[in-house]
Structures are given as structure tokens and as C-alpha cells.
């Protein structure tokens, strides 16, 4: 016993010390916090630099603190810095510093027009944002919404809400298309930006966007933003003395969450704990079953040598490229693309409830079935294999990736 205590004691003391800087004891109703005390103890960081050894100087210029345990020393850079890191090369800065500001700082050379933008948009963006920027499902609406901001259901789009055109270029340039960021050329981003502006009636169909025309684009809602004014409008109002006794005569319930019933696994709160316990039981049971299935499938795998598990695992990584649009596995449903459960061996264009391109429907009607071969060809170059497909993915260049993803999809039979 005492031996253990000796071993553990220093660790415990260390943990206390970490919190010690502003630790307030329990069971206090009102705690007066001293203003964050930052001592001016200067640590000459010679010891931290490489070229000096063993000359650790700590010149203490602080006034004595009354409550020394509450002082957090303010860290200081030494004269000449820490000499950490290295200078960034101009090529490196150029590779990453591609963001754009409202004054146009950061806009690259190049240009793009509305027509080119429409083409890129329909291929890369329409599957989520809709053909006219109206959005599919809960993906962001890009156009429309003018005059709705002061209504009950404001629709915040590029045209109705966004204050700066630079934000469109910047965001597309660095983060779109979703799941395939930074795949567009500067000209393509100019063109897409022009098209999004056109969808919002902010430019005409002959508009060409470049660094010069950029400043001409009007953004109607620009002047309706203002700097946070809570300090003036709210802080005083919400800093009045609070009533503690007999604050009101009656209290009525005026709104109830139950009426809406939108909570995941809602209601049954009286039994929540029991349910949770039951859930646990079910999960355990499920875990046991899974284990049994795993064991069983191990046996069958050995017998049939159908899928190389390592290849399938590699395929799961490659599948990240697809995840933005496709789901696979337990509970997979149709998203931008159809779910991919049991795709090998199924007829092309046959998932119920998914709106396929006519090209895909025709191929399925003509008897095409997704085999490892046909799927491989499709994934290598989707539009070459099936002209007219809605799938905007450019294709997998690496043959190994194709094999891996087919192995992965093949392993997701249900």
C-alpha cells in the first residue's frame, strides 16, 4: 500500500499543479476571479536555441505577486526569435496562398464566360445544387431568394444574401466541387463564378469574368451587413439585476417540443434508461451475432477465395473519392448517386427510386449488367464508357485503384 502511494504521489501532485493556476475551490457560491494575472517574468530562451548550451538564464523582472500560485507566466519571444522553422519558398507560398479578398487581392490571371461556366456547372455542380441553383435536397441553394430576408422563411443565396463576389470565386477555387476540391483550372473557376452570378441575374449571358471585370459585379445585399453591435444593443440590457423572488404570478407552457416530434429516437423518455440498457443488450447481442457471422464468413472465404480482403481494404480508401455522392454498406441509401450495395451482378440503372440518366436507363434496358469488367471500364473513364451519364466523376487513372474499388464494392454484397 505505502509503496504504491509513494509511486503515485508525484503524478497526483503534477496533475494538481496544472490546474493550480486559477483553481477555485468547490462549494463556493460566488467566486471573485482576479483579472487574468500575467506576470512579466522573462525567460531568456538561450536554453531553447541550438547554439547555446547550458546557459539557462531566467532574468526575473516581475514585481512580487501576492498570490503567486495564481500567476501564469507570460511567455516571451527571445531577442532574435527562437530560430524555429524555415523560410517559406516563393513556390510554396504560391501553391497555398490562393485565397481571394473582396478587393480582388489573390485573383489569378485568366478569364471565363457564362457559357463555359454552364457546361462545367451541369457536369460538376448540378447534381447537388440543381440545374438552376435551386438545390437538390438539403444541399445549398445558390440562386433566388430575393426579397425573402425579412420574411418568415429567408432564402440566403449568392444573389439574395452574399455581400461579395470574391467569396464565390474563392470558395469554388479552394473547396469545390465537393469531394473533388481544387480540381478546376483558374479559367474554369472564373467561368463557374460567372455562371453562378448569371443564375442570380447579376450579369448578362455575354459576361466574361476576369480580374478587371470582377469589380463591376453588383452585389445587391452588400450594404445590409454591419459589425457586431451586441456591446451597444444587448450587453447593457442583459446586465440588469436579476429578480430572485416572486418574479411573476403565473406561468403557462406555450410551446412544446413533443408537438413537433423531430428528435432522433424521440419520446419514451420515461423509459430512456431502460431502453438504453436494452439497446446495450441488443448491441451486445448484435456484436455476438456479428462475431459469429465473421467466423462463419471466414470459413466460406477460405473455401471460395472470392475477394482479397487486403485489396478490398485498399478499395475502401479509394472509395473516399466516391463518398460525396454514393453510399455503400449497411443502411446505404440513394444520395446524389445510387447506393452501391450488391452492385456487382446487378443490371445497369436498376436501383429503385433513383433517377438515372436516360443513357444509363437505355444501357440497362439493353441488357448491360455491372460485372467486374464493365464496372472497371466505367470507372476508368465514365463518359467514354457511357456517354450521357450524369456521373460527373472524371475517372480513376490508376488501374490498381480500379481493381481495389471493385474488390471493395464486391465485398459489400448486402
Amino acid at each position, binding site marked *: 500500500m505505502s509503496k504504491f502511494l509513494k509511486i503515485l504521489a508525484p503524478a497526483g501532485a503534477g496533475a494538481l499543479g*496544472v*490546474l493550480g493556476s486559477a483553481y*477555485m475551490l*468547490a462549494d*463556493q*457560491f460566488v*467566486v471573485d*476571479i482576479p483579472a487574468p494575472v500575467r506576470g512579466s517574468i522573462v*525567460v531568456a530562451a538561450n536554453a531553447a536555441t541550438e547554439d547555446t548550451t547550458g546557459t539557462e538564464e531566467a532574468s526575473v523582472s516581475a514585481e512580487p505577486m501576492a498570490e503567486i500560485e495564481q500567476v501564469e507566466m507570460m*511567455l516571451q519571444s527571445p531577442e532574435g526569435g*527562437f530560430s*524555429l*522553422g524555415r*523560410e*517559406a519558398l516563393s513556390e510554396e*507560398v504560391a501553391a*497555398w*496562398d490562393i485565397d481571394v*479578398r*473582396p478587393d480582388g487581392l489573390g485573383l489569378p490571371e485568366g478569364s471565363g464566360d457564362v457559357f463555359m461556366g454552364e457546361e462545367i456547372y451541369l457536369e460538376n455542380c448540378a447534381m447537388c445544387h440543381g440545374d438552376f441553383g435551386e438545390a437538390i435536397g*438539403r*444541399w445549398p441553394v445558390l440562386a433566388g431568394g430575393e426579397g425573402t*430576408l425579412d420574411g418568415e422563411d*429567408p432564402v*440566403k443565396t449568392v444573389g439574395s*444574401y452574399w455581400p*461579395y463576389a470574391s467569396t464565390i470565386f474563392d470558395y469554388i477555387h*479552394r*473547396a469545390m466541387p*465537393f*469531394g473533388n476540391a481544387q480540381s478546376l483550372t483558374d479559367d474554369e473557376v472564373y467561368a463557374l463564378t460567372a455562371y453562378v452570378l448569371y443564375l442570380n441575374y447579376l450579369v448578362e449571358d455575354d459576361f466574361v469574368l476576369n480580374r478587371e471585370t470582377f469589380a463591376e459585379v453588383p452585389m445587391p445585399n452588400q450594404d445590409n*451587413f*454591419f*459589425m457586431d*453591435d451586441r456591446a451597444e444593443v*444587448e*450587453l447593457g*440590457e*442583459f*446586465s*440588469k439585476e*436579476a429578480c*430572485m423572488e416572486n*418574479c411573476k404570478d403565473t406561468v403557462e*407552457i*406555450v410551446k*412544446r*417540443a413533443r408537438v*413537433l416530434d*423531430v*428528435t*432522433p429516437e424521440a419520446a419514451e*423518455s*420515461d423509459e*430512456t434508461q431502460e431502453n438504453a*440498457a436494452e439497446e*446495450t*443488450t441488443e448491441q*451486445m447481442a448484435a456484436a455476438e451475432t456479428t462475431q459469429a457471422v465473421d467466423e462463419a464468413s471466414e470459413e466460406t472465404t477460405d473455401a471460395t477465395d472470392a475477394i482479397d480482403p487486403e485489396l478490398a481494404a485498399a478499395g475502401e480508401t479509394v472509395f473516399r473519392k466516391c463518398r*460525396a455522392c454514393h453510399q455503400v454498406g449497411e443502411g446505404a441509401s440513394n444520395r446524389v448517386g445510387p447506393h452501391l450495395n450488391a452492385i456487382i451482378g446487378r443490371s445497369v440503372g436498376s436501383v429503385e427510386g433513383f433517377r438515372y440518366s436516360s443513357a444509363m436507363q437505355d444501357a440497362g434496358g439493353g441488357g448491360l449488367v455491372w460485372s467486374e469488367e464493365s464496372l472497371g471500364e466505367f470507372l476508368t473513364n465514365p463518359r467514354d464508357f457511357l456517354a450521357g451519364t450524369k456521373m460527373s466523376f472524371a475517372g480513376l487513372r490508376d488501374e490498381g485503384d480500379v481493381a481495389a474499388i471493385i474488390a471493395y464494392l464486391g465485398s459489400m454484397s448486402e
Partner: protein
Amino acid sequence: MVKIFKGSKPSRRSFLKGALAAGGAVTGAGLAQAAPDTAITELQPWNQNLGDGVDVSPYGVPSEFEAHVQRKNVEWLTADTVSSINFTPLHELDGILTPNGLCFERHHAGVAEVDPAKHRLMINGLVDKPLVFTLQDLMRFPRENHVYFLECAANTGMEWRGAQLNGCQFTHGMIHNVMYTGVPLRLILEEAGVKTNGKWVMPEGADASAMTRSVPIEKAMDDCLVAFKMNGEALRPEQGYPMRLVVPGWEGNMWIKWLRRIEVGDMPWHHREETSKYTDLLENGSARRFTWEMDAKSVITNPSPQAPLNHGKGHTVLTGVAWSGRGTVPRVDVTLDGGKNWHQARISGPSLPMSMHRFYFEFDWDGSPLLLQSRAHDSTGYVQPTKDQLRVIRGENSIYHNNGIQTWYVNEQGIAENVEIS
């Protein structure tokens, strides 16, 4: 009946059933026990059999009986789980620190799985010398430890038009409170040398959403950290591994994860997340921008819809959390009668600026319905407003920064519901 397991591994299911049966027999303190408690009289398997050795669980996980304690998402909220949010199970936690695996997640292009060996932090823009750091470089700077809450500006955003989600996990779970270890951003910026016209910094993430926000230089030089540890261990991938920005007291969206670059400039960038998002639309159609600070807020975590009062009448413990982006929370009031009368709650645990505070209020429940609320007072004198007080100023369309007082209605059975009251 005493179950004795011999030879074969005992079924975990039967463990649980036994535990439940025993638990169910005990209702209400002070009641006479009719029959002996089998939790005492029966030999439990763990009383007798050997447990796992020290080599079984090199990275420990919670008891299997806690498997229901999970982050949860609300499917209808977003188009896809890749750009979405899940919620911290506040009703299952106590104290002030959030366990790493339960910290809510919000990402805009999925969890980036960054190889730290291929991760760099670049400082560029209006600096004397643009610099590149590796994680190893960063760890040679002096570092600090601070406990801070991180709250998404949209926390409680679904409740602007009225009570909607039944559970504090869903109404208030876009928050976590963690001890960060990191390097003051000031030291890193000083290393590059900020030019005199450098008034703003723009942190950028390495994930596929390339998250960016504009941060005024005063905040950057004050208390921001570039953190690489949370609660002592490396940041979790979903929290920005290997490094994230910590912006104490300010909205979570600014705490850029997978931080790879900080640009210094002379004006803000007005990027997507500070124009089309994270601006607060008011009733008249105008919008506040740069609403960075998180207002003082609190919520009762127990009882709450997911954590009913299921013990019947008698002594009970009400608890909850409070926080403020402007300092500490020296006082929390609670009411049991919908705000007719208030009582000062007891705060227990560290009271740190811009960190969660834990409060308790113990009382004897007589079994009559309750209307529970909590009200935080922060160290600036600000008192958490009611939702109606907020609506008068902001309307119902602002989505963000809803710090209004939460009400739980608890009925005679102890079932709690999210309501609003007059």
C-alpha cells in the same frame, strides 16, 4: 438463484439482465426492503471469476454498460453526414471536462486524416519572413495549458422558433470543454515578424473544405493557441489532428482544424464562413457580421428529456453546465417553478475563464410537476437572457448565438420535456 459460470465464458447478456432485475427492486430511499437484494445475496460472476489482464486493452474504452453514451447526429439537419454535425451527450457527463471521444464533431468535408509527417504550418502575408513549421518545430516552442469551451455558434440554433428537440444533447450539445496544450499564436507570429499594417490573420485548414476565417490581430496576439494536444493526448482526427487553432471564448467555427496556414493581412477576407454563414440575420433583413464572442449560457443537463427523474419523490440532485465567452461564471441561478422564484446553485470544480462551470442544486422533490430553468451570470455582470428577450432584439431568423434560458417541464412521473413558458 446464484449463477455460476464454469468453463465457458459467461454471456454478457445474462450479466445485464441480472443487474437490471436487481436494480429494479430498489425504489425510493428509506423504503423497507421486502426481500433480500439479490445484488447482495447472489454471487456475481465478477465476485468470483478473473477479469481481463493488463494486456487486453492497451487503449482503454468505457464499460460496456456505458455503450449508449454516444455522440448523436440529427439526420434531417444536413444534406449529408460528411458535411454535418453531431452532438455531445451532455446529460451523461459530469464535472467540466469532455472526454475526447465524446466531443461533438462539426466538419465541412469529412474528417481529414492527416499524416503528421506530411503536415506543415505556413505563416505568410504581411510578415517580415514567411515561415514553414513542421509539427516537430512547433513542439520546440514554449507551450501552455488551458481549459476552454468550444461552442458552435449554431448551438441551440434549432430552437429559435420554439421548443423543437427533446434532449439537452440536441439543444445544447454543440459544445465541449477540453484542456488544450499548445503554443501561443503570438510566439509563432512574432517568429515571422508581423508588419505594422498586419491587422488581421486568416487561419486555413488542410481538409477538403479549406476552412478559413478572419481573426483580428488583437485576438491572435492575445490568447489564441496553436494546440496539438487535448486532455493530454494528441488531438483526435475529428478535432483537427495534428494541430488546430484555439480561439478562447469565440465561436467554434473560427477554431480552424487541421491548421496548415496563417496569412497576415490588412483587412478581413470575407470568406464563405463569415458571409453566407456565421452572420446573424435580423428581423429587418440586415445581418450582423463578426459576432465572435459567445454570450453567457447555461443548461440543466439532469434532469432533462434524455435523463428523467426516475427515482420517485425524495432527495434529488439537479445539475448542469454554464459558460461565458467573456470570462468566468461566478453565479448560476435555478428555478423549479418556471421563474417565479430562483435559487442560487452551487458551483463545484474549477472556475476558469472561458471554460465550462459545473453547478448543482439539491432538493427534495415532492412529486409535483416542475418547470426547470437555469440562468448564468458571468464575470462581466451579464445575465443570461430569456429566449423572448433575445427574440425582441434579433427576431427568429438569426440561427446563430441563441443563448436564451432553456426550460424543461418535468411531470409527475419525472418525464422531462423541452418547452417554452410565458
